[in-house]
């Protein structure tokens, strides 16, 4: 079984590859050039693997929340591939991909800067059985983030430089992971994708949808 996964919702272009048990990744720091490089990079990665696009069984896609334009570039690229090749799509939350960076067990809280003084976040429990999300995907001001955070949470992401002090002062025993853990890794698209395949939670090119998490008043028509 072959899976090709892509996430463009942050400044990194992340590609994750699954080939019958083996996982590969390709991560590129791009800032804002996703629209120029996403498709050509997918093509290069496929060539390096000696794969033809039609050999891919599933296309996985980071659907956000994250940079608005980034979310749209990734989902559009995957929709195009999956639609033309008649393949299923697996939408994976970019917060799930980030949460998988956590190196140790405990309560995990990825925190991504959503600008406008808001944070994209969720809460996960990591133990011997794996990583399990125990809260919805949220868009919160720092005050609410602090209320949701549990004692001793492991917190990381690019929201940290902005709110480090406030979180430290209000969340007892909070553990911060340094910058090395803030970037999405292409390989981490694969585990949640496999999980969804196992559960049969597949999408098509038509119904895979971005996860924007805008305020209620600003819901975007699909």
């Amino acid at each position, binding site marked *: 079984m072959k899976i090709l996964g892509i996430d463009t919702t942050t400044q990194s272009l992340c590609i994750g590859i699954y080939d019958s048990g083996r996982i590969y990744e390709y991560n590129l720091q791009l800032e804002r050039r996703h629209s120029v490089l996403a498709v050509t990079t997918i093509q290069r990665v496929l060539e390096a693997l000696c794969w033809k696009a039609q050999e891919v069984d599933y296309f996985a896609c980071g659907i956000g929340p994250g940079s*608005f334009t980034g979310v749209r570039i990734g989902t559009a690229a995957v929709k195009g591939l999956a639609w033309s090749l008649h393949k299923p799509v697996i939408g994976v939350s970019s917060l799930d991909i980030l949460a998988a960076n956590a190196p140790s067990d405990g309560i995990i809280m990825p925190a991504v800067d959503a*600008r*406008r003084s808001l944070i994209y976040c969720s809460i996960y429990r990591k133990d011997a059985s794996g990583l399990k999300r125990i809260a919805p995907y949220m868009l919160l001001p720092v005050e609410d983030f602090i209320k949701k955070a549990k004692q001793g949470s492991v917190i990381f992401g690019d929201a940290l430089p902005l709110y480090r002090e406030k979180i430290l002062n209000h969340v007892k025993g909070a553990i911060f992971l340094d910058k090395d853990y803030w970037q999405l890794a292409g390989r981490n698209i694969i585990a949640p994708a496999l999980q969804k395949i196992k559960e049969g939670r597949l999408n098509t090119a038509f119904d895979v949808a971005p996860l924007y998490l*805008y*305020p209620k008043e*600003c*819901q975007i028509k699909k």
Partner: protein
Amino acid sequence: MKILSGSVKQTLEIGKKIARNLTKGDIICLFGELGSGKTVLAKGIAVGLGIRKEDVISPTFVLIRRHDSKAKIPLYHFDLYRLKGCSDVAVLGYEEFVYGDGISLIEWADRLKELMPQQCLKIKLAVRGKNSRLIDISCHGRRYDKLMEAVRENIRH
């Protein structure tokens, strides 16, 4: 801070003075009815940043224009008049610009509603006579307290 401008020329001058202390990442939201002088003030600010006045025209139809300032900082000039609400704004991907590497000037900023930046310089313009306009500048966020102080100094001299 409230200033009464007696002419288009004077509004342009005020714009130039505001521009003097602008840096990367600054956001200026402009409010006011049609004809209240938002675009004139925007032109003044652009000129102050070293952009040719003729190049700055209202982006009502294109929603956003990018200009390169003398200091190589891009100026993003928005006009949100045609947008109905913040869901329209969200679809623009405007946050990539506004929270990016440039200076943002947003006409009809009231259209942003919930997406209005919490930290910004707000400038309200109102018609006070055939040629006179009341310009009301307020600051929101610590960064803009400083900018406001600098603008106050510039205008006094």
